[in-house]
């Protein structure tokens, strides 16, 4: 990427790339540009998915595209921010020499990609000294890019977005996903049976980070899922928080539950999904 892709507002440091890695707005811009390019790359591979191997279970698959797009993202991020650590879904973690760590999911919704279901996203989060400060989620098929940085709000293709103002759970459209662990399935069914009658409706599109971006944009009032990984949620949970949603993850009593919801329905929904 050309170095003039960094915004004029950033205070450039003397780092080798000319990028001030301490500025979350700069990191959001890099995440946005790289996620958009990666989304183009995924889009060009739609319909040509090929499984390379399976991980924990037959449904935990890796495609050639996952590997190639993650490699592309790593290359571009390291061009912009030399020395950054990178944690990706497919290649694991590469240690860095700076305070910056990128958290990357090249295709969130790999099963959808494999089935040619046109719902998937690219997720890139930037973490400084252990705290996520910027992120971008790119909708591969529809081309929308959601991005933001700490204190600066969230934009979708340049327009500011905020979490839903809904305060009645009956008006809330709620996203969720089902884990691939057989033990969790029964509990998930029971919880969905509580959530369905209490809300407008449930959606499951099969891409956690896209669900979270849509919570940030006020489209879904909430999203909850258990059994997610860091790369599934880092960017999306940051965007949802930054857009005004309440986000709970990794609490002791609800180990493994991610809940992101409009503040007006958070408590009502939390009572249902933590049962």
């Amino acid at each position: 990427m050309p170095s003039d892709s960094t915004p004029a507002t950033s205070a450039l440091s003397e780092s080798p790339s000319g990028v001030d890695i301490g500025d979350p707005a700069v990191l959001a811009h890099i995440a946005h540009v790289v996620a958009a390019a990666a989304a183009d790359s995924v889009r060009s591979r739609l319909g040509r998915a090929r499984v390379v191997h399976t991980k924990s279970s037959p449904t935990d698959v890796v495609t050639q595209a996952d590997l190639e797009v993650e490699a592309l993202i790593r290359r571009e991020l390291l061009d912009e921010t030399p020395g950054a650590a990178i944690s990706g879904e497919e290649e694991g973690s590469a240690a860095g020499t700076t305070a910056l760590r990128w958290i990357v999911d090249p295709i969130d919704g790999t099963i959808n990609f494999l089935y040619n279901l046109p719902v998937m996203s690219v997720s890139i989060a930037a973490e400084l000294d252990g705290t996520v400060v910027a992120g971008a989620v790119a909708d591969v098929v529809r081309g929308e890019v959601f991005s933001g940085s700490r204190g600066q709000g969230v934009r979708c293709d340049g327009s500011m977005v905020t979490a839903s103002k809904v305060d009645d759970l009956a008006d809330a459209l709620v996203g969720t996903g089902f884990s691939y662990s057989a033990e969790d399935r029964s509990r998930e069914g029971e919880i969905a049976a509580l959530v369905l009658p209490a809300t407008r409706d449930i959606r499951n599109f099969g891409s956690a980070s896209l669900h979270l971006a849509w919570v940030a944009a006020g489209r879904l009032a909430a999203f909850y899922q258990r059994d997610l990984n860091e790369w599934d949620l880092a960017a999306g949970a940051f965007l949802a928080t930054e857009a005004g949603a309440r986000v709970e993850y990794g609490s002791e009593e609800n180990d493994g539950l991610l809940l992101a919801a409009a503040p007006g329905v958070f408590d009502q929904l939390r009572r249902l999904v933590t049962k």
Partner: protein
Amino acid sequence: MSRWSPHDLREVALTTARLAADHIRSRTEPQGVYATKSTPTDVVTRTDMAVEEFIRGELERFVPGSSIVGEEFDDVEGHSGVGWVIDPLDGTVNFVYGMPIVSVSIAATLGREPAAGVVVDVFGGETFMASRGGGAFLDGRPIRVTTLDDLSSALLCTGFSYDAGIRGEQADRLGKLLRRISNLRALGSAALHLCWVAAGRFDGYFETDLKRWDYAAGMIIAAEAGARVEVPGDDNGDFLLVTTPGIFDELRPLVAPA
């Protein structure tokens, strides 16, 4: 006999549905709630009504004397032998909330038998179509259902009824179903669910309590793509089941109304 063939009607539906999708895309911001139908969950937007009016006008212009059944306006009884079943905006709840997963659905009948169907994914940009005996297509390329015969590997989709009683029953059965299949999605557009089964993206789709305009076009597309279909009616509790043939019998008892 009508002078129209299923193929002709498919082409009329195709032209009209694509224009209707352009119309919806041009109104990218969700419209305000205009009226509320059966329950508070069932929202109608101004776009719905404007787009259906447009579609009705086009179909009547192409095929004068058409019978028309649509979601938003009263049935029209024609004399041409050609009938249309239209949903101007399938996925209305998604649209109201700004979710970019909506479709236009137009089905044609000849002498009351299904003859052709077209579904356009408004923001995904794909067009699905079929005519009786002519096969099913996605953007001009033939499509087929999957060849799966193992239910435990099935990726399925469903939708939940607006009726609280039916919804409660659906919810209660989710846990059992989830333990028997690979995964379950719910996108909020019946027409796209059906087309995505047709294209081999889902292995099956089931839903109770749909309206005819929700499934008329998608059903013929799925059938022409090789799906086994069970049409909703009074005799099966308004239950729709569309799957690749190899999992139909095993799945049905898990999802059909008690």
